[in-house]
């Protein structure tokens, strides 16, 4: 029996209307018809550039924002279908880690109080002693010492603050942690420590992580599965290793080539990229004006996510591109 996915996102869309009474109403589509599933005990990566809707997705999964349409099923229950009280009770099962280590901890509270904050959502509110023990255990689990609990956030470095934020996210033993650019503000050496911590938590505590970032190398290093997003849409998804080894969508290929790599020296030998101004695309594929393989069909018919067959390295992979097969053949012939 395949286990039901921990999170099942179905046709999620979110529009933002701007402009007031007199000014023209201007609707921007932050998220368009995104469907995906996150399986227990895995790190699911979401990668994309700024403005692709990945943070909007994070806030919707955390029910910090309401979608225009679609639903987020957490363990089979739609977060936007339950009562406010029921949603509050469920919040113990999913928590969030943010990007900016200096903005995600309240400077006026001690570390102990910060980490203990989510405990108040548990049914039987734990007593003071129990809270202190839980906090101490959690600080050690993230590599800090319990006596840090009495100190204030300004006494810690960026990497340590992210560990405190992770301890806060784990205090109610949630099933899912949403990490929105959790390591982007950290230096190289500290970044690796936090990524290792996330992998330990997945392996030892079975925590599921929705890991959102713009950095391909970081996703490749830590994620089991990955979803690539472009201008509000999911354009490719599958096992991370396979996706980065052989991208099946031109945009994923473009990202992989564009990201500088410490082993590639000097100017890469590829045609200069033209990042022409993104046009507001109603119909057709929104990547077509930048896509080297675009054809007429790309302009008229929006490509849906589809699987390319059952061969071992194609199973469980999806891509939203009419010409994925051409990409595949070119791939093998190169």
């Amino acid at each position, binding site marked *: 029996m395949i286990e039901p996915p921990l999170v099942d996102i179905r046709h999620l869309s979110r529009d933002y209307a701007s*402009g007031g009474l007199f000014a023209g109403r201007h609707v921007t589509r932050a998220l368009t018809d995104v469907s995906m599933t996150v399986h227990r005990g895995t790190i699911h990566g979401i990668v994309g550039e700024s403005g692709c809707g990945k943070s909007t997705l994070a806030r919707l999964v955390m029910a910090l924002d309401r979608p225009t349409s679609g639903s987020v099923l957490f363990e089979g229950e739609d977060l936007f279908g339950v009562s406010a009280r029921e949603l509050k009770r469920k919040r113990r099962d999913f928590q969030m880690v943010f990007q900016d280590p200096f903005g995600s901890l309240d400077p006026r509270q001690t570390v102990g109080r910060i980490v203990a904050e989510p405990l108040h959502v548990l049914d039987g509110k734990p007593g003071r002693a129990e809270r202190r023990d839980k906090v101490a255990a959690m600080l050690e689990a993230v590599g800090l010492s319990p006596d840090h609990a009495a100190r204030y956030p300004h006494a810690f470095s960026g990497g340590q603050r992210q560990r405190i934020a992770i301890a806060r996210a784990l205090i109610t033993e949630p099933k899912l942690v949403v990490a929105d650019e959790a390591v982007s503000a950290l230096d190289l050496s500290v970044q690796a420590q936090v990524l290792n911590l996330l992998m330990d938590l997945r392996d030892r505590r079975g925590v599921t992580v929705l890991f959102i970032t713009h950095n391909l190398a970081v996703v490749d290093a830590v994620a089991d599965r990955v979803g690539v997003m472009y201008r509000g849409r999911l354009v490719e998804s599958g096992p991370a290793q396979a996706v980065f080894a052989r991208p099946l969508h031109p945009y994923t290929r473009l990202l992989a080539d564009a990201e500088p790599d410490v082993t590639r020296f000097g100017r890469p030998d590829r045609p200069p990229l033209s990042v022409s101004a993104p046009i507001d695309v109603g119909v057709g594929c929104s990547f077509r004006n930048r896509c080297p393989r675009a054809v007429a069909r790309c302009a008229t018919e929006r490509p849906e996510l589809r699987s390319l067959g059952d061969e071992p390295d194609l199973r469980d992979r999806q891509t939203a591109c009419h010409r994925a097969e051409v990409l595949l053949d070119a791939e093998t012939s190169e």
Partner: protein
Amino acid sequence: MTGLLLRRIASLVLTLLAVSALIFLVMDVLPGDPAAIMLGTSATPETLEALRRELGLDQPLVLRYLSWLAGVATGDLGMSYTYGVPVAGLIAERLVVTLPLAFLAILLSVAIAIPLGVASAARRNSVVDTAVGFLSQMFIAVPGFWVGLLLVLVFSVSFGWVPSGGFPGWQAGVLPALGALVLPAIALALPQAGVLTRVTRSAVIEVMNEDFVRTARAKGLPRRKALWRHAVPNALVPVVTILGLQFTFLIAGAVLVENVFNLPGLGRLALQALSQRDIIVMQDVVLFFAALVIVMNFLVDLSYLALDPRLRGRT
């Protein structure tokens, strides 16, 4: 762009209406019967009743408010109970004193504050900075009307250069009229100048830390050019905001200073109306002052569009 303008005008009208309603309500609740005041205590109940009906005082509150509002819109502010003349005329007559006084005070405070503020920001933590800081603290702490008293004490009582008050009226020539407004304007301007200097200083200091001032220096611009071409223009928005907010204090100051220099301004009119319980005059003067403040803030809002292109972009 026009959307923004329409929205701002709508909120202006809305605020003005709300203020007029508030003032009318407060005034209407007043004890004291206007008819009795006008006819004196010896009047018979019947004549009082007739007058009340004539003044429309017997109508329900809302109708009276609307008729007053209609009057305000068309410039007929009703008749003064004590003087028996149209209030509009009274106000106009006093306006020629208060408005020039307020305008002169604003000019003076800006002329003092902007240069001092920018200079102390440019040479931060220097002697100039501490001196200006001390001076602006003094200006803020000292009550404007007390400064007026001291000015009268020094310039008219001791030196006798200037009459100790009164206003010859514009028909006596611009110079003597302006002469009578100089000391009051100084008394009115100093507290504003103090606040404005401090705001200008902190605004300029804040902008000088911005990256684009460093970009300007990286182009080879000397410190002074970077200050005036890049820092000051971007520091104007907070300064203009305070200028708008200060206007309400300016009105309060004017009422006081008019009293010290016994200038026949709107403030004095309001005070006299209070002592004579001339409700209709008080109502109109307070509304006029409030409208002045709201319109000034509206103008400040509009000036943002000129100063900060980011707002112009938004439809």
